[in-house]
C-alpha cells in the first residue's frame, strides 16, 4: 500500500507545484471562497512585515493569525510553498494511518460480534468485507489530496491547511490511543481556531472506550480519566498561550485572534452564513444574534455525543462538518477536511437518500460562486443577494449531506440490531421513516 500512497503524494505535490508556478496562483489567493481574513497569506505577510519593523503584528487590524503561526513563518517564509505542501501531505498521511487503524478496529469488532452471533441473520449483506475496506485509507488520502478545494486552499497558501494538519494529527493520535499527544494536538487546534474545542467530546469517548473505561457519570474511573485528559489539554493550552505572550511580550493577540473569531467584525463575503446576516442586522440585535450563532456551533456537541457515544469516529466527522458549516469564517479548505472522510462511510451508500441531489447542488454552487462574484463585483449587474443565495444553498446542501450520512449511519446500526427486512406487527413489509 505504500507504493500507491507515494505515487499519490508525488502527483498531489506535482499539481500544487505546477499551480504555484502558474499565473492562476495570484488569482486563487484573492478568492474569498478560498481565503478568509483569518487565513489569508497576504495578511500573514503583512504581519511578518510589522514584526520585522518591531511593531506588534496585530497593530493595524490586518493580521489575525495566532502568534505561533507568525513565528513559524518568521523562519519559514522563504519556504512557504513547501510548508503548505508539506502540511497537506502530513494531513493526508495522518488521515491515511488513522483510517487504516480505525478500519482494523471496526473489522475486529465486527468479527467478535459475528462470533457472538449478535447480528440478525438477514444482515449478512451489511457485513463489511476486508476486500472492500482495503482501499479505503488510500481513498481517504486521495479525497483529501486531489480534492479541488484542498488544492485551491494550498495554492492560495491559506493557513487553513496548517489547521487541517493539526486536526488530522489529533485524529491520528486519538485513534492510536495516545492520550497525551491527543490532548496536545487538540489544544493546538483549539489554540488555532477555538472551534475544535468541541472535538474533545469524541476524543474522550474514544479514549475511554479504548481503555475499557465505561462512560458512566457515577464511576470514579471515568471522572479520573476526564480529569487527566482535561489537565493535559488545559495544561498544554496554557503553555501555548503563555508562550505566545512571551514571544510577543503583550496580550494583543487575544482580542485580535479570538475576539475576531467570536465577535465577527469583518463582514467580507465568504461561503459562510455570518456575513450577510450581520451586515443586514440592526446594531442593537448584534450581540444577541452573535451569541445565538456562536452557541449554535457548540450546541450540537451534546445531542450528537449522546446519540453517537458508541461511535466516536463518526462523531468526529459530524463535528468537523458542523464546525466547517457554521464557523464564522469558513473556507473551502475546512470543507475539504470533512469531505475526506466520506470514503470511510462508503458502506452507508445504500442507505443514503439524497446523495445525487446534494452532490449536484454542491457542484453547481461551487461553479456559481465565482460567476456570481464576477456579476456582483466586476460587472456590477448582480448584487450581494445573488451571492448570498448561493451561499445559503451551498450550506443547506452541506447540511443535507451531513444529515443524510447521519441518518444512514443510524439506520445501518438499527438494521444491525433488528434485522434488515423489518416486518410490521401484521407481517407486511415496514419502512423506516425519519420524522
Amino acid at each position, binding site marked *: 500500500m505504500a507504493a500507491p500512497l507515494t505515487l499519490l503524494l508525488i502527483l498531489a505535490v506535482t499539481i500544487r507545484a505546477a499551480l504555484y508556478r502558474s499565473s492562476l496562483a495570484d488569482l486563487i489567493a484573492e478568492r474569498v471562497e478560498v481565503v478568509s481574513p483569518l487565513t489569508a497569506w497576504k495578511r500573514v505577510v503583512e504581519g511578518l512585515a510589522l514584526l520585522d519593523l518591531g511593531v506588534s503584528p496585530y497593530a493595524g487590524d490586518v493580521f489575525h493569525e495566532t502568534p505561533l503561526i507568525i513565528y513559524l513563518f518568521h523562519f519559514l517564509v522563504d519556504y512557504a510553498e513547501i510548508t503548505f505542501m508539506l502540511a497537506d501531505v502530513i494531513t493526508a498521511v495522518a488521515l491515511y494511518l488513522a483510517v487504516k487503524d480505525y478500519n482494523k478496529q471496526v473489522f475486529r469488532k465486527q468479527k467478535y460480534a459475528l462470533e457472538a452471533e449478535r447480528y440478525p441473520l438477514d444482515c449478512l449483506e451489511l457485513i463489511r468485507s476486508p476486500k472492500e475496506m482495503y482501499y479505503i485509507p488510500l481513498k481517504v488520502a486521495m479525497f483529501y489530496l486531489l480534492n479541488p478545494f484542498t488544492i485551491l486552499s494550498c495554492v492560495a497558501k491559506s493557513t487553513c491547511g496548517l489547521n487541517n494538519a493539526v486536526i488530522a494529527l489529533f485524529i491520528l493520535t486519538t485513534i492510536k490511543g495516545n492520550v497525551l499527544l491527543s490532548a496536545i494536538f487538540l489544544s493546538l487546534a483549539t489554540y488555532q481556531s477555538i472551534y475544535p474545542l468541541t472535538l474533545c467530546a469524541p476524543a474522550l469517548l474514544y479514549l475511554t472506550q479504548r481503555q475499557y473505561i465505561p462512560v458512566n457519570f457515577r464511576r470514579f474511573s471515568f471522572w479520573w480519566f476526564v480529569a487527566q485528559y482535561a489537565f493535559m489539554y488545559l495544561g498544554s493550552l496554557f503553555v501555548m498561550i503563555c508562550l505566545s505572550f512571551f514571544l510577543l511580550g503583550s496580550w494583543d493577540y487575544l482580542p485580535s485572534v479570538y475576539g475576531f473569531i467570536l465577535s465577527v467584525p469583518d463582514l467580507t463575503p465568504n461561503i459562510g452564513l455570518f456575513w450577510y446576516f450581520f451586515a443586514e442586522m440592526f446594531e442593537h440585535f448584534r450581540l444577541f444574534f452573535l451569541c445565538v450563532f456562536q452557541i449554535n456551533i457548540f450546541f450540537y456537541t451534546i445531542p450528537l455525543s449522546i446519540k453517537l457515544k458508541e461511535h466516536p469516529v463518526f462523531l468526529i466527522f459530524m463535528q468537523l462538518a458542523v464546525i466547517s458549516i457554521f464557523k464564522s469564517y469558513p473556507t473551502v479548505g475546512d470543507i475539504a477536511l470533512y469531505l475526506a472522510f466520506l470514503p470511510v462511510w462508503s458502506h452507508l451508500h445504500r442507505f443514503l437518500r439524497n446523495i445525487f441531489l446534494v452532490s449536484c447542488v454542491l457542484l453547481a454552487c461551487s461553479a456559481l460562486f465565482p460567476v456570481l462574484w464576477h456579476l456582483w463585483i466586476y460587472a456590477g449587474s448582480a448584487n450581494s443577494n445573488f451571492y448570498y443565495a448561493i451561499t445559503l444553498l451551498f450550506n443547506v446542501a452541506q447540511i443535507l449531506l451531513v444529515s443524510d450520512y447521519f441518518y444512514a449511519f443510524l439506520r445501518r446500526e438499527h438494521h444491525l440490531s433488528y434485522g434488515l427486512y423489518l416486518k410490521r406487527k401484521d407481517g407486511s413489509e415496514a419502512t423506516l421513516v425519519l*420524522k
Partner: protein
Amino acid sequence: MGLLSDPNRRRALISLLTRLNAPICVVCYMAGVVWFMGLAFEPFTLRTYMSENAMGSTMVEERFPSGERALATGREFAAHKKKVGGMPVDWLVKTMQARGLEVFTQTFSRTLPFPDENKERYMVKGTNVYGILRAPRAPRTEALVLSAPCTQGDHNNQAVGLLLGLAQYFRNQIYWAKDIIFLINEHDLIGMQAWLEVNMGRGGSIQAALSLELSSDVITSMDLVLEGLNGQLPNLDLANLFYAFCQKIGVLCTIQGKLQRNDWDSVSGYSHSVQTMMLMVMKQASGRPWGDHGLFLRYHIEAATIKGINSFRQYKTDTNTIGRLLEGMYRKLNNLLERLHQSYFFYLMPSLSHFVSIGYYMPAFGLLAVILLLRALDLWVQLASPPPGTEDGVVDTEQMWSPDVLSVLTPLVISHLTGVALYYLPIHFQKMALEHFPVSDTEAVVLTAIAVYTAGLALPHNTHRFVSGEGTEHGWRVLKLVAVLYLAVLLGCTALINFSLGFILALTLVPVAAFVTPHVPKVPSAFVLVILSPACTLLFSVFFFQELQEVPISFQDGWVLYLSVISQGILDHSLYGSLVYPLIALLVYPCWLLFWNILFWE
C-alpha cells in the same frame, strides 16, 4: 421535507420521473421554446418605467440653439481630417481649448495578434483627444462622458461637430454638478480601451457615458445600442431616459433599427417584436461590443451608443433637435445622486417601450436545463440499480468502478486537451500556416481553428479502449452522467453571465445531451450531432442574423462572413478580453466532444 425523507413518496416520484422521462423531456423542451417565443408577446412584457428618482421628476428645458454651427464645425473637422490624413489632433486641441475645456491628448499603440482584414489594421497607432468641462460648483469627484469616434473616411464628422457644439454650449451653463468629459477616440474600441485603461481616475468617477454616431446633416431616427462586451447591458434606466426624451422632443427612436409598433395583437406586429428581440438576443450572444460604449460597462459605467440614422422616411430631424435631446439627457444624468442602480441590469427588449426582466426569461432557460437534470436522474437510477442477471451487485460494482474512473477520465482529459489546442494553436500556428499554404493571415488563423475543430472529431472517440480494453455499458453511463451534469453547470453559469448565449447553446446542445447513447443508429446521429455542434450553431446564427436584419446573403457570402466572424471573435478576445471564444474552445467544445465520444462508445 416530506419528499426528502418519506421513502414511499420518493420512490413513487422517482419511478414516475424515470418512466416518463422521454415525454417529460420533450414537453419541457417545447415549453422552453414556447415560453421564449412568448416573451415577445406584448401582454407578457412590462412597460418600461423610470426607476431612478433623481431622473424622474426634474423638469428640464432644452434650448440647444446652435445646430447649424455644429454642422459647420463638423465640416471644418472633416476638412482638417482630410488634410492630415487621420485624426487632426492639433486642430481638435485648439478648438477644444477655444471652447474653454481642459484638454489632454493620449497616444497609444497596439499590435494585433494578426492583421484584421475587416478594418484593415495590424499595428495600430493613434491618439485620443479629450477635453474636460469642470463643474463650476462641485468637487471633481464625478463625471459624465460624451464620446464620438473619429473614423476613417467621411463618417461621423457631424457627431464630432455636434460634440464640440455641445461642449461650447454646456460651458456657458451653470447647472453642472459633474465634470463632463468630451472624448474623441481614434480607432474605435482600441482607442476606447486605451483611454479607459489610463484615464479612469482623472475626471473623477464616471457615472454614465454616451457614445454618439452621426453621419449626415439631417436624420430620420435615432437608434439606441445597448449590447456591450460579453453581452453586458447598461442599467435599463439609461434606455428609459433615452426613450423618455425622444418622446418628449418628438424624435423617432428605434432599437435594433426597429420602430415600435402598436398592433401587437396582429401577426405582423408580433413577428416584428420577435424580430426585434431576436436581434437583441443574437447581438448579446455574440459577446462583442456593438458600439463604442461597450467597454465602459466593464468598469461599472452605464453606457450606450446613440446612432443617428438617415433612411428614406418622411420625418426629418435636424441637428438642433439632436442637440436638445443630448442636452436633456445630460441634464438629467447630472442630477444623479448615486450610480444608476435602481432599475434592471438583466433584460431583453422586444421594443423600446417594453422589456422582459430576468425573472420572466430565466424560466425559458430553466425548462431546458431541467431536461439535463432529468436525464441525469434517469442515468443515476439506472446506475444505482444493479444490472439484471448478476446476483451479488456489491462485488460487481466494486470491480466495475475502477476501470470506469479511467474510462471517464481519459475522454475528459483528451477532449479538454483538444479544447486547449483549439484555443492556442490558431494564433501560434499562424506563421507556419502562412509559410506552407497560399492564404492570408486571417484565413490562416480561422482555417487552423476549423482544422483543429474537425481534427478533434476524429481524435478522441476510441481512446478509452487503449487504456481499459472494451468499454462497458456501465462505463458510458457514468461518462454520460458526468457530461450531462457538466453541461448543465456550464450552461447555467453561461446563462447567468450572458443569457442569450446560454440559451442558444442550450437550444442546440440539450437535445444532443438528451438523446445520445451508443445504441442509436450511428450515421444519422453523427450527422445530427455535427449539425448541432457549436461551430454549426455559429454558422446558422450568421445566416439567421442576416435574415433578421433583412439582408439575406448567399451561401458563398455567408461562408466568408462566417470566417470573418470567427476571426473577429478571436480578435475580440485578445484585444478586449471577450470571453466567448475561450468559453467555446475550452469548455463548450470539449463538453460536446464528450457526447461525440459516447456516440462512438464501443
